[in-house]
């Protein structure tokens, strides 16, 4: 019994209701209304108002396609668009490839152990990406940790160029994105009944084939969701390519920021943003054709109608080829290192992957205690001076408190609004599903600087500039896509017959939701909450504009501190944040277990 069949059955039950019953039944689609209204006011309106500038002459305000003509006539913008898509695409591919085995391994662990391991996966999340990026410079540099080990041990005579090139950018970006990929895929994998693989093998499938054609296929909603989230969030990166990249690693967000902040040409910035938006939407459409993304956006449209789509057939064909190839590869590996060795491969790989994820943070901890003025590793000596700086500064402390408060409020709002919308799409078969899905993803695609400037104008009109409320609203706009996609993906695999069973046993809709649905999709809800929390906790651009420098958040305060001079206070702050978060998460876990 596969999901298609289940969805087919629910569809039949729904259509079996009499017209009168259907009329009185509140349409589930209404659950998306709060989210759509929120996005219309705080995202679509401010952003469209700004994008409208792109078809105006900056001086006269008359209609003009000048900015677009400039893009078309200069090759640099299309070239940078190409580089941006290449970097984002590679980041998505590598994050999924490297993250999939890790997610698979995590999904197979028993609950308690898994939760502790997930904490390790989350470690990079809790280190500000400003600090992480500088940590990578320390690790990968010419005189950095890796090159020192290689040349010191005589393994290499020359230091390797590991950073200030495409490789450095990929390391920084993939490292930042693997947690997102893993945590999107894992809840889906936990939901897969592993006995299905045993069944396939009992029916004669080779292990590799039973994996690719059964398990992998069932995990695809997670893979597609994770790939898309990573790809689209990577499009907007600018700090990592700026600090770890070389001459050619320029991404579009950097050019847009230059236009907005340095050249003050918002018409042209709007045109560049519009170009990126269109390109991203076209990619999403292609992605949908190839991998059946709309299977996520509710309904089984692609399996039923799109199933005949040629591109989708190609997708399935690719899968079969991979299955065959890996079956052969697995045979070879087993012959070389034996069955026991083969069984150890996955845990060894996962240990290495986790080491990669925690490495920059492990470096940041000793740097927090350094006696040097710089981010050096190993520290030349130790002192508590940077912690003293932090704890004696009311600015740092209030920024920390505000960041935790704003992030918690954002996470609650985003999970609630996004969860309701995901439920709406999962429970109603509407042709508007695709549009609603795209609307909720849109804040990811639009560069943050555009959202930030647009929101600033709106907030100034309604009195939300330099307020905590303004920060929460702005961050909720950014966090919604993560919460929405994560919950959509988990609902995708949810067996709705359980709800029907609850209804048959006399539970009303609210009771069913809270006593049956919510507990069963809890993993997804927790992931959504954490994504939203982290999105807010590490957010800089909106904070820069909305805070006005007065209601400072932690990333904003770090940014202010590091524009001119990078000092180890940043590392000390990261250590403090890391300790607080770890303690909170451990307490939450303990509390939940005893409860």
């Amino acid at each position, binding site marked *: 019994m596969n999901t298609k069949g289940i969805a087919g059955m629910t569809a039949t039950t729904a259509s079996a209701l009499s017209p009168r019953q259907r009329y009185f039944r509140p349409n589930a689609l209404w659950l998306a209304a709060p989210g759509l209204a929120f996005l219309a006011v705080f995202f679509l309106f401010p952003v469209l108002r700004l994008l409208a500038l792109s078809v105006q002459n900056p001086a006269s305000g008359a209609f003009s396609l000048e900015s677009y003509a400039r893009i078309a006539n200069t090759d640099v913008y299309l070239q940078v668009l190409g580089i941006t898509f290449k970097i984002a695409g590679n980041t998505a591919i590598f994050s999924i490839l490297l993250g999939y085995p890790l997610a698979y391994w995590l999904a197979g662990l028993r609950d308690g152990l898994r939760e502790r391991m997930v904490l390790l996966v989350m470690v990079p999340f809790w280190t500000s990406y400003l600090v992480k990026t500088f940590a990578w410079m320390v690790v990968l540099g010419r005189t950095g940790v890796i090159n020192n080990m290689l040349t010191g041990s005589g393994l290499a005579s020359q230091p390797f160029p590991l950073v200030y090139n495409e490789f450095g950018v990929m390391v920084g970006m993939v490292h930042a994105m693997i947690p997102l990929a893993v945590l999107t895929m894992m809840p889906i994998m936990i939901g897969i009944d592993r006995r299905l693989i045993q069944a396939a093998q009992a029916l004669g499938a080779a292990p590799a084939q039973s994996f690719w054609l059964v398990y992998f296929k069932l995990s695809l909603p997670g893979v597609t969701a994770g790939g898309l989230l990573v790809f689209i969030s990577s499009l907007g990166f600018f700090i990592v390519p700026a600090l770890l990249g070389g*001459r050619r690693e320029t991404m579009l967000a950097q050019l847009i920021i230059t236009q907005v902040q340095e050249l003050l040409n918002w018409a042209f910035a709007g045109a560049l943003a519009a170009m990126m938006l269109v390109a991203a939407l076209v990619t999403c459409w292609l992605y949908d054709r190839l991998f059946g993304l709309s299977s996520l956006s509710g309904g089984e449209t692609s399996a039923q109608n799109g199933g005949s789509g040629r591109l989708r057939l190609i997708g399935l064909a690719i899968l079969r080829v991979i299955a065959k190839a890996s079956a052969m590869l697995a045979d070879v590996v087993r012959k070389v290192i034996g069955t026991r060795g083969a069984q150890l491969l996955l845990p060894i790989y996962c240990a290495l992957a986790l080491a990669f994820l925690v490495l920059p943070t492990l470096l940041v901890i000793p740097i927090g205690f350094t006696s040097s003025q710089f981010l050096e590793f190993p520290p030349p000596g130790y002192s508590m001076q940077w912690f003293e700086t932090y704890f004696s500064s009311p600015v740092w402390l209030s920024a920390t408190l505000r960041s935790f408060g704003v992030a918690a409020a954002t996470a609650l709002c985003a999970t609630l609004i996004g969860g309701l919308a995901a439920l709406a799409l999962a429970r109603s078969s509407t042709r508007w599903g695709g549009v609603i899905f795209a609307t909720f993803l849109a804040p990811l695609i639009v560069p943050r600087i555009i959202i930030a400037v647009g929101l600033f104008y709106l907030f100034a009109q309604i009195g939300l500039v330099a307020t905590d409320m303004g920060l929460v609203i702005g961050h909720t706009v950014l966090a919604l896509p993560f919460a929405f996609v994560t919950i959509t993906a988990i609902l995708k695999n949810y067996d709705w017959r359980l709800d029907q069973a609850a209804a048959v046993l006399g539970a009303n809709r609210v009771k069913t939701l809270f006593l049956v649905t919510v507990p069963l999709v809890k993993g997804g809800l927790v992931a959504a909450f954490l994504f939203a929390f982290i999105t807010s906790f590490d957010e800089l651009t909106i904070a820069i504009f909305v805070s006005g420098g007065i209601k400072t958040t932690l990333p904003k305060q770090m940014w202010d501190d590091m524009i001119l*001079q990078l000092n180890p206070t940043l590392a000390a702050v990261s250590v403090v944040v890391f300790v607080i978060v770890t303690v909170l998460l451990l307490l939450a876990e303990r509390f939940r277990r005893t409860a």
Partner: protein
Amino acid sequence: MSDTTLKMNRRHLLKTAGGTALALGMPGLSGRAFAATTITVADPGGPFGPAFRKAFYDPFEKATGIKVVNVAREAEPTAQFKAIVETKSYTWDVCTLTLSARDILAKQNLLEPIGFTRDAAPGLMPEAITEHWMGTDVYSSVFAYRNDHFKNNAPKSWADFWNVEKFPGRRSLRKNPIDTLEQALLADGVNIDQLYPLDVDRAFKSLDKIKQHIAIWWTGGAQSTQILQSGEVDLTTGWNARLQAAIDGGAPATIVWDQGLYSIEGWAIPKGCPRADAAKQFIKFCSTADRQAVFTEALAYGPTNLDAYKSISPERARVLSTSPDNLKKMRVANEAWWSENRAAVTERFNSWLLS
């Protein structure tokens, strides 16, 4: 219904604009209630905060009773500045601007006059004061080399920086055409007094020669400190104070002031600011030599009031951009040329980087 909307609007206006709309109509009222008591000053953040507090904010509070709250502004606050004026939400009353930001904002009519001239502060450098802006600190675009790499044979000019055979080593330039084009022209033999208008074609030809030898294109001031300090590169361009930070932290490096270009950062007031009077008073306060001498104790930036050197020690003066010895080796970067050409040249530079 319309009644409530009106009330809402008024309340919001009051909140956001700090009473601007009312302040325009009733200046006396808002002056008493809010304006004269506190001003918000946006400085570059980081080490500037404490240094400016000691030199300017605290003494100003003591002298006038006007409280100064300082916040950190962005490296390029132009977008925020524009938004503040256009929405009349005056979160800042005074903000530091670079010359380029000043010109862009002045052109869009977003700056308030500062209300005094050089007559009031004759020690100021002539280029450090305009109708809308007063310079407070001078920074230079120079280069530094690692002493441990260039032991006996150190580069002394831009021509040396470009000479990869005679001065082998890993190099870094800024990923931005500003200053980089001038440096390329100086390396190619252009006289520093005849730099402007820049010969852009010649500059790119000169850059072509060194393109393959640039190990790192740095993008932020903190990064230039980091790569010089860690020895990632052997010579790099940068702003003198950022390079000095590496040297102060113990890095064996030397700054080359010859053929440097300097530029100025200074205070400006957003147009229509309801607390403009207090802001003007503050800016004038910052023009005095004794106040400016104080901030140079903590920051390696040059004062704009050259009389400040009367009370600055000779050792300290050596690392400051406007000390007589350093200033005579340098020229001011021509902001007028850049305001005119920046968009087109930036586009060409980005395209050149990718080719």
